[in-house]
């Protein structure tokens, strides 16, 4: 499975506070879910792609992302084009087929709605990598703490993130050991064989990791984890003028989107 990470660049998006970017991302998510008119959704998509370009991120990655949802995008579009109950007929395909709920026509509203849902998917899929590639992990964690997410949860996130590579290494070791025992075929074979092989890794992996957790528990206890003290942080983050502007913009767009929706604008 493809993964993405922080790309170090000097751009306005990189300089924004991680909290601002999180709020922006959620605002975009809400706004894109409010509208079902493709013109409105295209406008949001251009905004996201513009941010992508301004952040100096490789645009070919958008194409890579598209590979992952081409199939579902086609399914969404075809289903809406054929089965959405529209009023303006565009094209007659066949006689009505009541058994599958097909009126026989492709309607303008169906095409518009299908297009809007596909564009919605594109926006949702491109906005999350935008945050990840412009924000170092430490800043993201700090943002969560600043949002008053309990420190214990932020600790779980950072610890899990740092333990992930060692657990992956351990999984590879177990995989090699299981291969030596002839337990499973991890590379070839049908997916049932591969899934069963993956399951044969999980049990020893979980047990080994749980054993390690006891060492971590002792280390945490010896450092008085959870003691009721005022916690300080090595890294600090502060809102700047640009952050306030973007936060105000996010709030205004949210309110604006809701008002437009109440006025039945942006809806097919």
């Amino acid at each position, binding site marked *: *499975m493809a*993964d993405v990470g922080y790309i170090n660049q000097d751009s306005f998006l990189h300089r924004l506070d991680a909290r601002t970017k999180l709020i922006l991302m959620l605002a975009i998510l809400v706004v894109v879910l409010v509208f079902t008119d493709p013109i409105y959704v295209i406008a949001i998509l251009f905004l996201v792609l513009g941010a992508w370009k301004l952040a100096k991120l490789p645009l070919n990655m958008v194409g890579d992302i598209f590979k*992952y949802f081409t199939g*579902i995008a086609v399914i969404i579009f075809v289903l809406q084009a054929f089965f959405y109950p529209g009023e303006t007929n565009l094209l007659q395909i066949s006689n009505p087929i009541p058994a599958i709920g097909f009126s026989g026509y492709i309607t303008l509203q169906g095409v518009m709605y299908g297009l809007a849902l596909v564009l919605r998917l594109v926006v949702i899929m491109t906005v999350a990598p935008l945050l990840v590639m412009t924000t170092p992990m430490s800043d993201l964690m700090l943002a969560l703490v600043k949002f008053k997410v309990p420190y214990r949860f932020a600790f779980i996130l950072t610890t899990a*993130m740092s333990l992930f590579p060692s657990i992956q290494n351990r999984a590879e070791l177990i995989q090699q050991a299981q291969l030596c025992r002839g337990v499973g075929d991890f590379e070839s074979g049908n997916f049932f064989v591969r899934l069963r092989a993956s399951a044969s890794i999980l049990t020893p992996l979980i047990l080994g990791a749980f054993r390690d957790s006891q060492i*971590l528990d002792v280390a945490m206890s010896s450092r008085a984890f959870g003691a009721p003290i005022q916690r300080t942080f090595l890294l600090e983050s502060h809102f700047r003028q640009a952050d306030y502007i973007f936060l105000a913009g996010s709030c205004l767009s949210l309110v604006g989107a809701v008002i437009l929706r109440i006025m039945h604008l942006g809806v097919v």
Partner: protein
Amino acid sequence: MNQTNPPENNIEAKPAPVRSWQSRGRIFGIPVSLIAIWAALFVAASAVPALPVPGMGGMITVNAIMTAISGVVLGPAAAVANMAGAIIATILFPFGAFFGPISFLTATVGGLIAGLTFANRWKLAGAIELLLIASWFVNPASWQPYMYLVPLPYTGIAVLVIFIKPLREWARNQILTQNKVWMWPALFLFASIGHAGEYLTSNSMTNWMYNLTWQYWIPTLPYWIGVDTVIVVLSMVVGVGVLIGLHRARLPHASDLYIKK
């Protein structure tokens, strides 16, 4: 110098430390270190693709097994562990996150319902399960023909286990007492609860965000039932191995908290 030593029985008089739900360094009685380790395991499992999703480039990953068994291993703390793991997985592998920044909800809800049921907090588990079912059925897309069939198979099992006390108690007892024979079906039932919670959340979010109609859901239903069965059966196999291993190695897990001593 007049120095008095404390009498020895004073030391004995101190009560033994009791595990409380709010004790330091623990969440729902489970050590934070264990939850962090589970989250890291969840992320590692998210990198292993297992089953293709029909019509999509995405894959169902091995973390589906982790979600299904998380409730019996960690109790309600599974929700926190799965949430942390799923958030990191979304950050590291955002290409598979069809629900964007709220993709973490699916594994969180699955772990929460199974964990609460295992902790015998069935009323809360049942309320969340009913809310999930409602979130599916209040969507107009779910009023289309045969759409009631989509959440039926494993959600039906989950509802039965949560609300029928003898069945729930029996399944809990088999797992808590590590009955060699009946632990298997009991784990199947709990894995069904965890997996049903995850997929019903996922299905409901799909319907609300992308409005897939019955023309997608109904033809692919046999495939989904097959996928769910494979995941639940594998979860049962992995879960039994993990629980027996944890018990024999005397490693901390949720059963320690609920077993009657």
